[in-house]
Structure formats: C-alpha cells, structure tokens
C-alpha cells in the first residue's frame, strides 16, 4: 500500500487557508492512485506530528504544499515528522532543485519530496492561472506576465523560486514580457506598471493560499483598489494598463498535478493519474470560468 501526505501550513485564524489543500487532496483521492491520501498541517489537524500514524500504508510520499525551499520544508516538516536521518543536503539543492529523500519514520518508509513550488510543473500552473483569469487559453501575445513573490524576508530561496519560474516562462516566448516582482524587495509589485510596456498585464502571485498578502496587500499596493474590502475589477485599469490579477496560484486546480509529479518523481506508482488530473482540472477550469467571471475579485 502507498499513501500520499500533503503537508501544508494551515491557519489558526483563517478558515480558508486549508481549502486549497483539501481541494487538491480530493482531486488526488478521486484518481484512486493512492490507497490513502491525507492532508496534514502545521497549524491545523492532523498535525505533521500525528499524520504518519494515521496511515496503514508502509510507503508514504510526503509532498509539502509550500512555495519555496526553506525553513518549513528543511527544518519544521522533517522534524515534526520525526525524519531523524534528514539533512537538507539530501535534496542536494541550490534553492530550486530539491527532488526527494527516502527516510524512515514510525516504522514506515517516507519519501520526503521537495515543495510543489519549485517543481518544473509549477511553471505550467502559473501559465494555466494566467489562462483562467483572462479566460483565454492562448493568452500570451501582446500580454505581460508578472509572477509575484514574497521576497527575501526570511528566506532567500523564496525569491529564487519566483525568478526560476519567471525565467522558464520567459524562455518559452509565449508572453511578450515576463517579470518576477516582490512584495518586500526590488523590483516591487507596487510599481508593476513601470516594468511593463504591454497594455495587458497578468499578475500571478506565487502563493499557496489566498490570505492577507494576496487578498489585501497586493491588490492595494498595485492600486487595483483603495480598500481591499471593496474588491477590485478584473481586469482593473491602473496607469493606462489593464491588470488581470489572478490571486494565489495555489488555488488553481492544476496544482494537484504538481503534487502527483512530486510523488511520481520519488517513485510512487500512479499510472495515468497525472493525465486524468490534467483533463479533470481543465474541465473544472472551464466550468469555473463560466461561473465566476461576474464575481472575479470578490
């Protein structure tokens, strides 16, 4: 038997923080690729500390639903899971190329994977997010894309992940312009319009869940709205640009695919689950688009 654990931050205060985790876990459950699928949290339950014992499987794939390699993925999660043989060198990563490490805990084999945020498949999720917010499956020509991250505050890898995906999207040549922008360092998201010549700019925050940063700070800082509580238009006119603000990339249904890719890289036997998730989430995205245009930005 094999199990998947999706390890996320969660929140003591915000009931919405776990929603993307639940949604992606359910998408994976519905593929039947794993005998058991569990959500686990730092701030909610089951806690990282308690999750392994809830599994009957001997092979456990743990995928952190985090954006960057750093404090949580390198210290907190391995410690709380009791991965006593863990050392960050096991990932042999320069900040964006973690793969997996196979360890033991509580009598089980734990395949501890790098975070979703630095997997190559994440690049496609950012692009998918741009497609869904513009309702244009071919979005790119004549359009700029800003990938927004937190910045270095506590962890330099946080900026690396943002730049990594921005570079990969830029190299594909699909968008006229691609920039990595940050909340607390240059180039700052506040000045988003200074960095683009294109009239239309899609802004995708590289965050796991919507919350204070993506729903309050960034919209106000970019000038989409005076007061986040009043919402904003999608697209919103800012200094003669149209800003298509996507909200947290982590809420995109295709994130479930990245989780599966992580586990598959580490050796999970998931057969064609990835293709099925791609198809299922594309259908979800279509349905969402039809349903949500009117309320975008709420």
């Amino acid at each position: 038997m094999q199990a998947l654990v999706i390890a996320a931050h969660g929140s003591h205060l915000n009931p919405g923080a776990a929603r993307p985790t639940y949604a992606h876990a359910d998408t994976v459950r519905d593929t039947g690729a794993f005998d058991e699928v569990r959500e686990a949290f730092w701030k909610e339950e089951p806690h990282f500390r308690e999750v392994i014992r809830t599994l009957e499987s001997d092979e456990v794939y743990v995928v952190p639903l985090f954006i960057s390699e750093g404090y949580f993925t390198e210290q907190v999660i391995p410690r709380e899971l009791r991965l006593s043989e863990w050392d960050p060198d096991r990932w042999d990563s320069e900040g964006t190329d973690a793969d997996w490490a196979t360890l033991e805990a509580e009598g089980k084999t734990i395949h501890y994977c790098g975070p979703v945020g630095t997997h190559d498949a994440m690049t496609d999720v950012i692009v998918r997010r741009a497609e869904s917010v513009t309702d244009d499956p071919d979005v790119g020509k004549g359009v700029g894309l800003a990938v927004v991250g937190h910045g270095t505050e506590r962890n330099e890898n946080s900026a690396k992940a943002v730049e990594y995906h921005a570079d990969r999207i830029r190299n594909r040549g699909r968008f006229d312009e691609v920039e990595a922008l940050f909340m607390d360092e240059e180039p700052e998201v506040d000045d988003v319009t200074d960095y683009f010549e294109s009239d239309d700019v899609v802004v995708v925050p590289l965050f796991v869940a919507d919350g204070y940063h993506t729903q309050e700070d960034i919209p106000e800082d970019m000038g989409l709205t005076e007061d986040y509580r009043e919402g904003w238009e999608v697209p919103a006119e800012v200094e003669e640009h149209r800003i298509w603000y996507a909200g947290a990339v982590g809420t995109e249904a295709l994130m479930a695919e990245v989780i599966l890719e992580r586990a598959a890289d580490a050796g999970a036997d998931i057969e064609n689950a990835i293709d099925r998730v791609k198809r299922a989430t594309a259908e979800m995205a279509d349905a969402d688009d039809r349903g949500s245009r009117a309320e975008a930005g709420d």
Partner: protein
Amino acid sequence: MNAERAVEALVERVDGGETVDCDGLSVEAGPEGYRLELPELERTGLSTEELRRTLSAFGEYATNWRYWDRVGGAGTARRAFLRWCERAPVPGEATPGESDPEPLAVPDRYDALAEGIDREWGQLLLTTTLAENGDRRYDLRHVEDAGAAVEDLDTYDEPREARELTTFDEDGRYRPLKTAPTLVPGWVFPSPSATELVSAVGFFYPATVENWHREREGELDVDHWIDTAERQTGIYDVIDELPREAVDWMAEACCVDSQCLRRREWEYDSEDPIDAPGGEGPFPCREPCSLVIAAARSWAIDESEESHTWEVELTRGERNQIEEIVDAVAEGRTEEIREADVGEGANRYRARYLRAKRFGGEDDGDEGGEGFGDLVE
C-alpha cells in the same frame, strides 16, 4: 438470520488449511475430520456435513467470523476501533478515559446489536446494528442528536464532507481546534461502511483513533511539555522559557474538558505532573497542540516582564466587577449577557461605564497605561 453463506465461506477457509479463530469460535480441518470449539462445546472428528450443521446451529459465531474476516486489518487501529464500537473484545487495556462496559461474547453482543450499540467518541455518537446477513450497519451523528429521525437531520455520505462540518461552530466562528467541544449538531452519516465510518471519525477528530489504539497497546508516545517546548524553533523558540507555574496555568486555561475533549497525558516532564485536570475523554492528547504552542509564545513573552505594584482606586463593587468581566470572557459568556441586564458586571453598558470612569474612556487605547492605575515605584 441467514448464516448459510458464512458457514460455506468458513468451511472453504478451513478446507484451505487455515485455522479459523474468532471470538470463541475455533475450527480446523485434520486427517480425522474437523475440530470445532465454541464456549462450552468441543467436537472432534466431524464430517463436513456435521460441521455445517453444527455451525448453522451457532450461526451467530459464523456470521461474526465472516464479518470480521472481511473487515481485516489485523492489529490496526481501525479494526480495534470498530470492535470497540460494538463492545467486542479488543486487545490491550481500556484507556483511563473509557468508562468501558465489559466486552460482550457473541450471543450477548448479537442481542445488543439487534437493538443497536451506542458509543460516544467526544461529541460523536456511533451506533452499530446488525444487518440481516450478519453484517454491521453504522450510524454516525452528534451526541445531541441521539434519537433524532434521520429525516430530521442533514444526511452525508462522503466521509470527507465531515471537514465542512468541523470548520465552524454554531455561531459561525472558525474552529481551529477540532476537539473543542463546539461541534455543531444536526447532521448524520446514516449508513457508512466500516471503512467510511473510521475515515469520517478521522476527519472529525484526526488521529484520535490511532492514539487511543496506541494507548491501549501501551505504546502511546507522550511528549511532555518541556521536550515539546525545547524542540521548537523560529518564533516559538522562546516557549521553553515559560516559568514552571505558568505551565500549570496554561493547561488549566487550554486543556481542560470545557475547552478540549482530548485527555491530556503530557505533563511538565515525566516526573513533574501538571496541577490541572487532564480530562475524562476516551482519546488521549500526547503532546501540546499547535494552539497551545502559539498561545505559550504570548505567555512566554508576557511572563518575561517583571511584576509591579500598581495603585488603583476602585470601589469594592468595581473591583468585583472586574472579576466578573474576566470570568465572563474566560467562560465565553459575553454573548449571552443580555443588552439590558445591568445587574451583570460584564454587561456591555456596565463595562463601558467602568471604562469611562476608570480607564480613561473610549479613546484611551494604551492598554492599561496612563488611563488605569499608577505605578508604585
């Protein structure tokens, strides 16, 4: 009850060379015929026909074996829990919080199952009854909804839907602690399978079944306060500085049954018990949870400040009123104090009056600085 299929399956199993051994029933095939044992009955040298006939006469034992054979999961928490639900014998010791009635032998258990066996798990009520073919049926609902007709409750089939039921309390406030005694009633899982039942309980109260099982097996890995505190890093690095007596106050504030249904098994350390009741529930708490850790950080910072003597002028009534306000907040009663109940010290008008008179009024936002009391040097 129709035991025919169970009897056939059992004969087939022992013919395959296995010994069947379940809840007082033991059957095996040998060169001299079958050996069958039941409480107060032993037969040897039975022909297949004699074995069938005897088993059919004790059909309850046969269907009981067949059910538990299909549940499977030897040694798992899932199996132990499902057996506990119907008062079947479970390996290990009853946990301190289980007011455990004696386990029932098969005939008595079947009588009880015909009526339905109720078990409480926190605020969950689990009822096991017998289906026509000897299978079990389950019903999972809130303890407050005992006896309610299924039609009068919101019905759920998917265990994962339990997540939605656990997210908010009756006032619509977020429940960050799943084992807080604030689970909303009004719903039912009317016919979950055994697997779905355990899965749903796992969504309501994550890891409680597994930790209960470990405790029964004598293998609960308790992490006491000081070990848990010293393990923390980052912004929680400070919590191991919380003074010893503050850990008692913390447990009294957070971990008693009125706040959390887990039974606290962790102490300050293995030799230094915490002076607050640990609770009475069936499932244990094996280490301070993330809410306690987060709150401990605030208290560790508060406790790093020195105490001072303050000079405050209050009437005796005002002094008592402050106590009443603290009590009302601590008991979560502020919402129920009526608008015009000015006899209550924690009534909003009474508190606003006190603030106007003694705390510098509405605009004094400096948290007990200038507005309230003078520091005695």
